[in-house]
C-alpha cells in the first residue's frame, strides 16, 4: 500500500523519522514563515548545500510567501520534483535532495541541492600516460558523466540510469552513442543488468562478474578504465560504457582480447612506433607466460636443443644449486608475486624498502648463497618486466605462467605445447556479449587487423571494429583517390 503524504506536518514528520529508523543524520526542520504558514524541510546532514538552502530557499519562503498555493514561485532553484508518497520522499532524500513539505498540502517538493565532498579530478595512478589527457574519473557519477560529455559534445550521447543493489541502491549509468552503438549488445547488456540480483554494488567488479559470459575464465571479458578519453574512444567504436556511482572505474563492453596489448597512447604517437610497441607487447605476452615453462622444459628434457655455449653457462650457473630446476623456478615466481603484492598494499615509503629487500636480498644474496642460479634470476626478471608492460592482462598471466611452468617441469616441451594449445583455444573460444573475444584474429578480419598488432596510419582506419559496430561502421568516407 502506498502511503501518501498527509496534510499534517507532524504526522509526516513522525512517519519519516519512523522510516529512517530514527537515524541521527536525518534532519527535519519545522518552521513557520511570516504569514504563519507551517512548513518542514527534511534532508540528510552533509548531503546538501546548507548555504543555498538558507539563502535561496528558506529566506524567500520565510519573508515573502503569503499564500501556500504560490509556493512554486518562491522556491529559487532550477530543479524541483513534486512527490506525493512517503516512499518517494524517502528516496529523494537518500539521493541528496531536500524535501519541503507544507502544512495542509499533500505534495512534497524535492529540491536538488546536493553537495558533498569529493576527490578532485586528477591523474589516475593505475593508468598514467606521457602524452594524452591526464584527467581521470572520480567516485562521483555526475562528475564522471560530465567528464565524458565534455569529450563528446553530441546530442546522441545517451546516459541511461538504473538503480542496482537491493541494499545500496547504487546509481548505474549506461553511456553510448545512439546511431553507433550495437543495439543487440545494448539489449543483451540491459537484460543481464536486469537479471542482477545482489545486495550491494560497491565497486565495478560487483557488476563485472555478474554480467560476464565466462566468469570462470582467467581473462576478463569486460574492460575497465579510469580515463575519460579511453571511454570516449571506445564508445565511439560502438561499445557501451557502464558508469557506477562510487567508483572511478568505468566498465566497457564488449571487450576484445587484442585490447589487452593496446594503450591509449598508441593512438597519440606515431603509428610506426606504436606498431613497434604493440609487437613488443605481444612478444612480452608470450615471454611472460611461456618463458619460465620453456626454460624449465629445455633444461630438464631437451638439453640438446640449447646452444652448446649457453648450455655450458647454464650448467655452470646450476652447479651447486640444491633445488631441482622446476622447484627453483616456481620458488622464484612465487617470490616475484610476493614482492609485487607486498609493495602494492604498503604505504609508499615502506614500499621502497620492499623493493630494496626484494632486489637485493632475493636477487643478489640468493645467487651468492647458491640457492638460486643467476640465470634463473635473470629469467624471472625478464618475465616480470614483460608482465609489467601489459598491465591489462596481469591477472590471467600470473596463473597461466604457473600452469605452464608446471607443465614444462612435468612434461617438457610437450607439456608447454599442450598448455599453449589449451590456453589459446580457451581464449579463442571466449565471447564478450556475443562478439568473438579473439576478433579480428580469430575469426580473421582484414580491415580489423589494421589496428591490432600494428596500428596503421589514421588515414587508413576508416572502419570501426566491424564485429562491434554493426551498422554505422564507417568512421569517415574518404574522398576519392585516397
Amino acid at each position: 500500500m502506498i502511503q501518501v503524504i498527509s496534510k499534517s506536518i507532524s504526522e509526516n514528520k513522525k512517519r519519516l523519522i519512523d522510516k529512517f529508523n530514527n537515524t541521527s543524520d536525518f534532519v527535519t526542520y519545522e518552521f513557520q514563515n511570516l504569514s504563519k504558514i507551517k512548513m518542514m524541510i527534511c534532508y540528510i546532514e552533509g548531503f546538501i548545500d546548507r548555504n543555498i538552502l538558507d539563502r535561496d530557499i528558506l529566506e524567500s519562503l520565510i519573508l515573502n510567501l503569503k499564500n501556500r498555493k504560490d509556493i512554486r514561485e518562491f522556491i529559487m532553484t532550477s530543479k524541483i520534483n513534486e512527490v506525493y508518497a512517503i516512499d518517494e520522499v524517502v528516496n529523494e532524500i537518500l539521493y541528496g535532495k531536500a524535501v519541503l513539505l507544507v502544512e495542509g498540502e499533500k505534495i512534497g517538493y524535492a529540491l536538488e541541492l546536493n553537495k558533498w565532498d569529493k576527490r578532485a579530478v586528477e591523474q589516475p595512478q593505475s593508468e598514467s600516460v606521457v602524452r594524452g589527457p591526464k584527467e581521470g574519473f572520480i567516485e562521483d557519477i555526475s562528475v564522471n558523466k560530465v567528464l565524458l560529455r565534455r569529450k563528446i559534445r553530441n546530442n546522441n550521447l545517451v546516459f541511461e540510469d538504473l538503480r542496482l543493489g537491493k541494499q545500496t541502491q547504487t546509481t548505474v549509468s549506461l553511456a553510448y552513442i545512439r546511431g553507433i552503438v550495437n543495439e543487440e549488445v545494448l539489449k543483451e547488456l540491459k537484460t543481464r543488468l536486469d537479471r542482477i540480483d545482489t545486495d550491494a554494488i560497491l565497486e565495478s567488479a560487483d557488476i563485472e562478474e555478474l554480467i560476464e559470459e565466462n566468469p570462470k575464465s582467467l581473462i576478463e571479458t569486460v574492460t575497465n578504465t579510469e580515463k575519460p578519453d579511453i571511454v570516449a574512444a571506445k564508445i565511439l567504436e560502438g561499445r557501451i560504457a557502464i558508469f557506477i556511482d562510487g567508483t572511478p572505474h568505468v566498465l566497457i563492453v564488449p571487450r576484445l582480447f587484442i585490447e589487452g596489448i593496446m594503450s591509449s597512447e598508441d593512438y597519440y604517437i606515431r603509428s610506426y612506433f606504436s606498431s613497434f610497441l604493440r609487437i613488443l607487447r605481444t612478444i612480452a605476452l608470450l615471454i611472460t607466460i611461456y618463458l619460465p615453462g620453456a626454460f624449465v622444459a629445455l633444461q630438464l628434457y631437451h638439453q640438446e636443443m640449447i646452444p652448446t655455449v649457453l648450455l655450458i653457462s647454464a650448467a655452470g650457473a646450476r652447479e651447486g644449486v640444491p633445488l631441482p630446476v622446476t622447484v627453483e623456478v616456481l620458488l622464484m615466481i612465487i617470490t616475484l608475486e610476493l614482492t609485487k603484492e607486498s609493495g602494492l598494499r604498503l604505504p609508499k615509503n615502506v614500499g621502497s624498502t620492499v623493493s630494496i629487500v626484494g632486489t637485493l636480498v632475493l636477487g643478489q644474496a640468493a645467487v651468492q648463497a647458491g640457492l638460486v642460479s643467476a640465470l634463473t634470476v635473470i629469467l624471472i626478471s625478464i618475465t616480470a618486466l614483460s608482465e609489467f608492460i601489459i598491465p591489462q592482462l596481469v591477472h590471467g598471466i600470473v596463473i597461466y605462467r604457473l600452469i605452464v611452468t608446471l607443465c614444462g617441469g612435468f612434461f617438457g616441451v610437450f607439456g608447454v605445447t599442450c598448455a599453449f594449445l589449451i590456453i589459446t583455444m580457451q581464449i579463442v573460444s571466449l565471447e564478450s556479449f556475443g562478439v568473438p573475444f579473439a576478433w579480428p584474429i580469430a575469426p580473421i578480419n582484414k580491415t580489423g587487423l589494421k589496428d591490432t598488432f600494428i596500428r596503421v596510419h589514421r588515414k587508413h582506419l576508416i572502419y570501426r571494429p566491424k564485429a562491434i559496430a554493426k551498422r554505422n561502421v564507417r568512421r569517415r568516407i574518404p574522398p576519392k583517390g585516397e
Partner: protein
Amino acid sequence: MRNKIAISLFYIIVCICLTGCYNARELDQLGISLIMGIDIEDGKILLTAEIVDPAYTTESSSTIQGSSVKYVQGSGNTVLEALRDITLKFDRRIYGAHNKVLIFGEEVAKLGLVSHIDELFRDKEQRESSYILIAKGAKAYEVMGITNGLETIPANYILDLIQNVKYNPKAVVVSIIDYLRHYYHEGHHPVAGVIEKIKKMEIDELGESTGTKNYELTIIGSAIFKKDKLRGYLNGNDTKAVNFILGHIERSIITFPTPTNVFEEGQSEIGKQQLSSVIVIKSKVKNDVEMEGDRLILKTKVDLRTSLGEFNGKIDLTKEENLNKIAEACSKTAEINIKSAVKKVQKEYGVDIFGFGIEFHRKYPKQWEKIKDNWDEIFAEADFEIEVKTHIIRTGLINNPPIVE
C-alpha cells in the same frame, strides 16, 4: 569436419614429435661431452671423451687454459661397453648430444668405421651433424687436449678449425650424416677429415724458453675410404682439387702464374714466375661420364665466377682481353691441379670418391647393374677430362696494380 581432421592431425603430429621426454635430467647430473675419441688398443675399444667442466664459466680464473675440460676414458669390447665403463670412474653421466667432433684413431679407421662404431650412429643422443676426423698416424687421444687457439675449450678450437675450411678448402668437412650417405651410396666412396698433431714453431716470447714441447693441430688434407675402411690420405692441394669436383670451393682462392705474353714492355724478370690469385665467388660443377666404345671418359666442367684477389705483373687490367687472358691462365692452372689429383686418386687408391659412379648409374642404368661390383677398377682405368672456365667479374678495390702507370 575438415577443420576437425586438421586439428586432430596437428595433435597427433605434435604428440609424435615431442614425446619421449619422460625422464628429466638435471643439468648438474650431466657431463657434457664435446669431443669423443675412439681407438682400438689391445683388441678393445678405448673411448676418450672431453667433458666440459661448467664451473669454469662462473669462476674468474677461467683464463687458465685446460682447466675448463676433463678427459675421461673407458674401454670395452664395444663402444657402449666403453661408455658404461666410464660411469664407474666418472661421477656424471656422459651426455653426447653436444658432441661436435668424433675423432677416430688411424687403427680404427683401417679396421672399418661403421662396423665398429655403430653405437655412435644408433644412439639417439648423438648428433648426425657432428664432424668426423681421422687422427693421422696417431691415436685419437693423442690429438685431444691440444689447443692453440683463443678458445678455452679445446673442442671449440677444433670446431673453429673445421669452420675455417670455407676460407681454405685444403681440408674436407664431413659430418656423420655425410659420411653415412656416401657409405651407403653405390659408386661414391666417402672421404673424411684429418686431424694431425704438428710441432709448433717455437716463438721465444720475452726470451723465456718454455722447455715443454708445443704442439698445435691442423686439419689439412683428407682421408680416403673404401666403404668404411681407411685407404690413405690426400695432401692439402689434392684435397682442394677434390673439393673442386665436389663443388665446395666458394670463397677459396686459386693461385696461378701470371701470363707472360701480355706483358707490355717485355719480361722484366726472366725466369722468375710471377703469381696471382683469384677468389672464387661462385662455382658451378657438372660431372659427367661418357662411354666411347670400350673406353670410359669422366668429364668435369667447372664454371667459376671469381674476383681478382692479388695480382703481380705489369698488365693493364682495364682492358677486357687482358682480363680474359688472366682468366685463361687461372683455368689452366686449376685444370692441371685437378687432373693430377684425380690421377693420383685413380692410380694410388683406385676408389671413386668423386661420385662418378652415381653419374654413370644415372646415365647408363642397365650397364651399371653389370659393372657395379667392379666399378672401382673401371674408375681407375678411365680417362679424365676437365674443363675449367673462369670469369673474373670483379677486380677488388683497384684496377691496375700500382706499378702500372
